[in-house]
């Protein structure tokens, strides 16, 4: 394992045959040389009667590797497979070049409840870094595995893990009769367990999460014209926002969940409006004759960045949520659009055109410094992980639109493939 791991790891998921056509396959196309070696030993199943429905250690290992910050020891290279601290011989793991070791077991409490225990060790110091006992049901072992990944990741990197989060995205398929089917799906951050939340024969676009992660707002053309809907994930119930002549688009939730920024063109050209969820009233924020669209709230709730071509070409501007003069943010390049704030509010990710190619770039708001992170031709829709570590986006693999992810430093890259259709507009959920 040196320099870069290219097309090295393909993580496929154990899925039911029914869900096969909708599973996302994640492929790491570029890793980092500094990835920390870690061994995740298969968890001991103390239930004598039945096998566990998921391989917890494999899920943890896959999560950690996918972050690009870790490389995981193959099970075939393990000299033994300890499940308790007394069984660990640290010199064995040192000899295998491992920095850290994870062991664990699943205990059957006889009342149908399980307890998942795990310990994380520093192999060189020979000491435990963290360890937890987590109560679980058979049906939520996958979620427990992601929580363990979060705990390990945070302990070893100092950054909160985002393995227990989800992503929403739009799919588009065409059948043999030319009929289109558009969907929004929600899947775990590792691509597992995709569920369709809305299906339409007319386009659906711009899915965006409420800050509590319980709702998704989106734009649907199901009535031939655009309308914004907000759908509660648990129940599937949805509410149509009052819609107007012209564009009803680009919804973006305020961090406190009381307002939606959106684009309307009812008063002429596309402008940014603020919809108050409680009073159900609309307030116009921008008034230019140009196109103003794609609003995004700053994490402190005070500013909104948006795309405008008031200067002739689409560029990013910033305005106070109370209105007033908008300030131009981007100057480099002739096309900068659809900005999204990083969770710490220090950067924006956006679509940036270079030599006719559309790429994902970040811009440091304080300095205006731009870093181009991707190398596609038609990259769009950047969405930050809630811990800021990665940016999901859509790219074109030469034939169709697929999802991809890049670490916010540009060093780690992944592709997420969905069989049989176009996938686009990924939106990473907030922490729960």
């Amino acid at each position, binding site marked *: 394992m040196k320099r870069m791991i290219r097309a090295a790891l393909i993580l496929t998921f154990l899925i039911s045959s029914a869900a096969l056509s909708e599973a996302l396959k994640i492929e790491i196309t570029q890793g980092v040389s500094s990835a920390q070696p870690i061994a995740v030993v298969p968890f001991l199943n103390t239930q004598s009667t039945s096998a566990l429905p998921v391989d917890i250690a494999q899920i943890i290992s896959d999560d950690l590797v996918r972050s690009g910050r870790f490389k995981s020891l193959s099970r075939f290279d393990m000299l033994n497979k300890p499940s308790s601290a007394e069984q660990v011989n640290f010199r064995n793991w040192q000899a295998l070049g491992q920095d850290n070791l994870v062991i664990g077991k699943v205990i059957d409490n006889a009342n149908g409840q399980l307890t998942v225990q795990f310990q994380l060790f520093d192999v060189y110091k020979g000491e435990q870094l963290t360890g937890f006992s987590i109560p679980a049901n058979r049906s939520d072992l996958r979620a427990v595995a992601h929580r363990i990944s979060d705990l390990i990741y945070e302990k070893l990197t100092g950054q909160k893990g985002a393995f227990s989060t989800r992503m929403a995205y739009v799919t588009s398929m065409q059948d043999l009769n030319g009929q289109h089917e558009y969907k929004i799906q929600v899947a775990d951050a590792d691509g597992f367990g995709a569920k369709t939340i809305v299906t339409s024969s007319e386009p659906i676009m711009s899915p965006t999460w409420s800050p509590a992660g319980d709702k998704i707002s989106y734009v649907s053309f199901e009535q031939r014209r655009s309308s914004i809907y907000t759908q509660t994930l648990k129940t599937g119930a949805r509410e149509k926002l009052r819609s107007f002549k012209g564009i009803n688009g680009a919804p973006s939730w305020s961090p406190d969940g009381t307002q939606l920024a959106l*684009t309307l063109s009812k008063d002429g050209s596309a402008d940014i409006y603020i919809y108050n969820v409680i009073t159900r009233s609309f307030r116009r924020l921008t008034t230019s004759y140009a196109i103003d669209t794609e609003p995004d709230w700053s994490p402190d709730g005070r500013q909104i960045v948006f795309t405008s071509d008031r200067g002739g070409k689409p560029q990013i501007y910033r305005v106070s949520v109370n209105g007033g003069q908008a300030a131009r943010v981007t100057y480099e390049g002739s096309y900068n659009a659809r900005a999204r704030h990083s969770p710490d509010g220090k950067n924006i990710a956006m679509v940036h055109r270079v030599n006719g190619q559309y790429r994902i770039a970040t811009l440091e708001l304080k300095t205006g410094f731009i870093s181009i992170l991707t190398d596609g031709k038609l990259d769009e829709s950047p969405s930050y992980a809630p811990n800021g570590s990665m940016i999901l986006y859509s790219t074109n693999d030469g034939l169709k639109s697929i999802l991809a992810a890049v670490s916010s430093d540009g060093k780690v890259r992944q592709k997420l493939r969905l069989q049989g259709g176009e996938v686009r507009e990924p939106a990473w959920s907030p922490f729960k």
Partner: protein
Amino acid sequence: MKMYKNLLTGLLLSTALAGCSMFGGDEQSSEGAMSGMHDGAQTSGMMDGNKYTGHPLDNPASPLATKIIYFAFDSSAVEPQYEAVIAAHGAYLAANSGVSVIVEGHADERGTREYNVALSERRANTVQNLLSLQGASANQTEAVALGEEKPVAVGHDESSWSLNRRVELIYPAH
């Protein structure tokens, strides 16, 4: 021949009725969905000697037969070859106050999706304004912006993109 004329009258009447309910007010009703617009009946021109007797919107010799206007990259300016087409549709609407048209704007896939919705609306608005210059009234036309969401060509090069940067004139009752 007479029978056909009756049929045509009926057609125009239904157009007028559809026109009444279609573009009322600022706010759209949630029941306003119109279905079957793309797979509606397609009439074909019947030449009777040298005289065209089909629906005027289908007359291959008339600029009215052209219902798609193409645009240059990142532009909402109507190119000269389409001026006569739009003028003919505007005059047709002015002469048939019961007829309404959806002016549907589209963009190619380059650039961001919501910006493309706005760009496609600008194209639709340009055409809509030219129609009203010919006397089409405001309640006869509605601009709808679909951005890059409904491409007619799915390739990733200029040959596809040039077909997707378009405004379609859709007569719902036709």
